[in-house]
């Protein structure tokens, strides 16, 4: 009985995190972008500095008509948002918040699980792009696929490097093995992982698949109402997942300068939040990359860097056992 209760509580906690954290990131994005651009951002909804803006947006999306284009492939079109969103919920389940069993569900091969399931989420964009029967959507889907294929490799290689360093592929094990000098040692891998993750999420400056000035909104052009909101939510859930993974893999997870294991959850959340701020910052700072620049960055820059990081990790691991 207590086992069932334990599992239920864990699932509930992960579900709440999944529903709340993306909205927090979204609202932060509203405000941070606004202040970086010298304006206020949403100020009215909810009273205090427009904190309820995204809730209001959600209510608006629910009220909108759910349109499926006449020429579209109905079933695939309607299924796509769920395929895009649910994988992030599953990944959130395995990201440890603190030491020991402060994790939704400990998975032995945690890195592989997280990266594999994140890759499945992209299928949702592909399905949406194809099923919409719209040439802009199809172009968006094509760009999504091309981007995923080129950025999956450096991301995996960077993750493999840190797994080699820790001698385990379990997320809890990696954060447990972390020492402060891993930061300079694995810094190249961390940057490669983070940049490739941004590209996989299609965040600016890698938002070629949804480039609104060229192909309207890529694979999501034909979507309205709640299904469109699901795609947006998937993007923000993706930010939370990417920042959480980077924190656990490269920044030591729950390890902090003081507070011990009791404050572990605080350090994890703080590092994740700082990374999420960087994600927003990059969006405001850099212009969108062109498709060929995007491919070039991955194949001629990130992949060699990731390979060099793996070589460095191997050498250090052999020299200092």
């Amino acid at each position, binding site marked *: 009985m207590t086992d069932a209760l334990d599992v239920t509580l864990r699932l509930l906690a992960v579900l709440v995190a999944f529903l709340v954290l993306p909205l927090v990131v979204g609202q932060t994005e509203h405000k941070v972008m606004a202040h970086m651009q010298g304006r206020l951002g949403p100020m009215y909804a909810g009273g205090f500095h427009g904190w309820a803006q995204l809730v209001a947006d959600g209510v608006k999306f629910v009220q909108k008509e759910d349109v499926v284009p006449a020429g579209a*492939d109905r079933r695939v079109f309607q299924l796509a948002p769920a395929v895009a969103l649910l994988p992030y919920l599953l990944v959130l389940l395995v990201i440890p918040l603190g030491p020991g069993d402060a994790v939704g569900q400990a998975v*032995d*091969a945690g890195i*592989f699980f997280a990266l594999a399931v994140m*890759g499945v989420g992209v*299928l949702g964009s592909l399905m949406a792009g194809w099923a919409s029967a719209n040439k802009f959507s199809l172009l968006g889907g*094509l760009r999504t696929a091309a981007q995923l294929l080129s950025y999956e490799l450096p991301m995996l290689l960077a993750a493999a490097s840190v797994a080699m360093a820790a001698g385990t592929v379990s997320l809890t094990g990696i954060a447990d093995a972390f020492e402060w000098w891993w930061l300079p040692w694995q810094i190249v891998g961390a940057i490669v992982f983070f940049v490739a993750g941004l590209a996989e999420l299609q965040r600016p400056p890698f938002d070629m698949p949804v480039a609104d000035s060229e192909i309207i909104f890529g694979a999501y052009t034909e979507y309205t109402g709640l299904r469109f909101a699901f795609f947006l939510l998937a993007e923000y859930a993706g930010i939370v997942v990417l920042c959480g993974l980077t924190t656990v893999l490269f920044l030591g997870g729950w390890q902090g300068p003081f507070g011990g294991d009791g404050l572990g959850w605080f350090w994890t959340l703080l590092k994740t939040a700082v990374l999420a701020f960087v994600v927003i910052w990059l969006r405001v700072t850099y212009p969108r990359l062109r498709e060929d620049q995007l491919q070039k960055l991955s194949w001629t820059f990130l992949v060699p860097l990731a390979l060099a990081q793996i070589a460095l990790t191997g050498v250090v691991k052999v020299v200092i056992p």
Partner: protein
Amino acid sequence: MSHGFLSPTGVEIAFVLVGVVTLGSAIVSVTTRRLVHAALWLVVALGGLAVEYLLLTAEFIAWVQVLIYIGSVVVLLLFGLMLTRAPIGRSPDADSGNRGVALGVAVAAAAALVWVVVDAFRTTWIELDGASAGTTKATGESLFQHWVLPFEALSVLLLAALVGAIVLSRKRAAEGDER
């Protein structure tokens, strides 16, 4: 502990059910007349296979299956379909006249594989209660201690395929220049 076919455990029942779903989606995948739907049914079949690995305690293999086959191979397939021709609805012109031959080859290959697997693992049982036999550690140890040579041979094969792909694409580019 005795192992009987007449008193299946929960895991065995789940294994059979997932197997039926996998087989069904695989059959739909080769018989459907909609190209992209075939690729999407392939996702279901490959995902079902990953669940089967998971039920056999081979956790690492299961995630790698999802990562490589669903995350990369199917995405590449869809990319290729979208680049060439992926109409919404039926595409009867994509059918080939080789249905009979294909069925024969598939049945022969399946029979050979099932025979080999049954012959090799007839009396092998996986103990579900004790330590897992398919963890990353166990998989890695057996792969790099007992199966290093096949592993390396496979990497050479992949390298050869990679070089071949580069040669083919470069040749076509050179011909394009002459025109």
